[in-house]
């Protein structure tokens, strides 16, 4: 069996052999892994595949294996969020997206590594140790869905689910040379996904090609009454896979090509824009003057929401519990021992930003800046169909290189987090290499205009070969 397969190829293999055999081969690849991409491998995967074989492959994803980020609840599998504080916790219910996947016949291979509570851009803050980038095992895979991106890049799953609060699907997609989509806010239910910053995050797919992103979106997107921000967009994602960009208007926001961008990244992204132009699209520069304030606004909002969302981890009902002479001491010790440094930093900063005397200066100010950033997107996207820019200003960095200084690490989210403030869809697709490391092209669209984003990405992919390159480190 080829190590890297599209969903269509996996389907063929299942028909030729069986879902059980295909699952067994992925489990074998996972067993030989060099990247620490999975936190838990499901012991029930083979059993699930056998059942699908017995039932006769019904459903759009019948027998197709998938990897799930470890903050998305699956009954019977631990849901650690990369944290000690959820030690031993096994969710008693499935996330909405998992119900959809199971109904479509997908086989869950396991749960993937991530920055603790999705707070990071490198997967180094996981309690279970860092994941390695399949293109260079000394480098980070990006984050926070680093495990999901790395296992897809390493051929240990055909596709995966991640979550994206400020770039957590697109950053690792860019660093690992795979495709990742942050859908429009509201298109995919967040029910059963452990909340970090709920006004910003969406579940998103990661795959080896644009087609498989659309295949997965057709299964997981849609209305869910258990998520009060759910919107039924009725988009047919696979129908958007049209190889034609004639007449497509591309906006190039110059603010995304700021100081510190790697020259090869800048070159690769411009080459991609010119490629689209050759294929019949047109481009123009657009200005988004508030983008430079997006990062600060994003972090204040994310940390503030986190300080509230993570209050539930108090040792009372599940997970790790420390001893304490009274309730306050028990909770304070549980959280001191159970959370890692970065999570504690963000909770403390968020608590500060919401506390009496500072609420208006930080939190309210950030929400107002969010409005200005959103207006920048509205204005830019009123003139063009999509925006194109680098996903990450630089390629994957070395493990340990940025972990000591939080601000340095935060700055790497500069091109991804504005999208979450505005809630628009954004996809990262491979567009080149520098010193053997992948580069991602970011394509952003109007709210619920994933079809335009997918059309641009699909056409670019069909006319280039970046997505066919595989990392030799894990071959």
């Amino acid at each position, binding site marked *: 069996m080829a190590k890297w397969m599209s969903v269509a190829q996996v389907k063929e293999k299942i028909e030729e052999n069986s879902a059980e055999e295909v699952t067994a081969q992925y489990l074998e690849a996972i067993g030989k892994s060099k990247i620490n991409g999975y936190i838990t491998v499901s012991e029930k995967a083979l059993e699930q595949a056998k059942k699908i074989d017995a039932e006769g492959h019904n459903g759009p994803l019948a027998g197709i294996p998938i990897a799930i980020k470890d903050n998305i609840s699956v009954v019977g599998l631990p849901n650690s969020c990369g944290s000690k504080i959820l030690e*031993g*916790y*096994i969710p*008693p*219910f499935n996330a909405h997206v998992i119900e959809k996947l199971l109904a479509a016949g997908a086989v869950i291979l396991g749960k993937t590594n991530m920055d603790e509570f999705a707070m990071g851009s490198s997967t180094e803050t996981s309690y279970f140790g860092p994941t390695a980038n399949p293109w260079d095992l000394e480098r980070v895979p990006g984050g926070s869905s680093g495990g999901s991106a790395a296992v897809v890049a390493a051929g240990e799953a055909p596709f995966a689910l991640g979550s994206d609060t400020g770039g957590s699907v697109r950053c690792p997609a860019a660093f690992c040379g795979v495709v990742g989509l942050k859908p429009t*806010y*509201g298109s995919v239910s967040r029910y059963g996904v452990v909340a970090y910053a709920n*006004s910003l995050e969406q579940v998103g797919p990661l795959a080896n090609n644009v087609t498989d992103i659309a295949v997965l979106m057709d299964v997981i997107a849609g209305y869910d*009454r258990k998520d*009060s*921000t759910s*919107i039924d967009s009725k988009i047919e994602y696979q129908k958007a896979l049209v190889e034609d960009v004639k007449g497509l208007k591309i906006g190039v926001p110059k603010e995304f090509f700021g100081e510190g961008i790697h020259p090869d990244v800048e070159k690769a992204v411009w080459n991609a824009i010119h490629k689209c132009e050759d294929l019949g699209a047109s481009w123009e520069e657009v200005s988004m003057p*508030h983008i430079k*304030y997006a990062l*600060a*606004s994003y*972090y*204040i909002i994310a940390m503030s929401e986190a*300080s509230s969302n993570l209050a539930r981890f108090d040792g*009372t*009902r*599940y997970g790790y*519990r420390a001893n*304490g*002479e*009274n*309730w*306050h001491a*028990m*909770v*304070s*010790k549980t*959280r*001191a021992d159970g*959370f890692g440094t970065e999570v*504690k*930093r963000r*909770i*403390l*900063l968020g*608590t*500060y930003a919401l*506390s009496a005397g500072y609420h208006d200066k*930080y939190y309210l*100010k*950030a*929400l*107002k*800046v*969010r*409005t*200005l950033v*959103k207006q920048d997107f509205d204005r830019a996207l009123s003139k063009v169909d999509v925006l194109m820019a680098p996903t990450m200003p630089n390629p994957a960095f070395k493990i340990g290189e940025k972990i000591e*200084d*939080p*601000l340095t690490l*935060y700055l790497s989210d500069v091109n991804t987090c504005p999208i979450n*403030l505005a*809630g628009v869809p954004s996809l990262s697709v491979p567009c080149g290499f520098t010193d053997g490391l992948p580069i991602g092209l970011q394509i952003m669209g109007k*709210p619920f205009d994933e079809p335009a984003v997918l059309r641009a990405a699909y056409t670019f992919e069909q006319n280039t070969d970046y997505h066919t390159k595989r990392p030799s480190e894990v071959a």
Partner: protein
Amino acid sequence: MITKEDVEHIGWLARIEISEQETVEYMEKLNSVLGYFGQLDELPTKDVTPTYHVAEIYNVFRDDVVEECLPQEVVLANTEHKQDGAFRVPKIG
């Protein structure tokens, strides 16, 4: 600028125990991040409406009907600290 006392205070508000040595470390790292956040001050926002979330959804209601929920033993299955069908915690104060 955030002081040692501020760190201790927010540690208490967030219910995270912080040692003497950690207080100094947090103070330095938090001040560096807050310094960066300070750049927002240069942007005038007096008449700007805040955006809490971007979905154009306001009140979401459902019919007030009883539905099946998780059984008590399933909800209690994730902790050893339970008694008589309830979670057991140390006394509050």
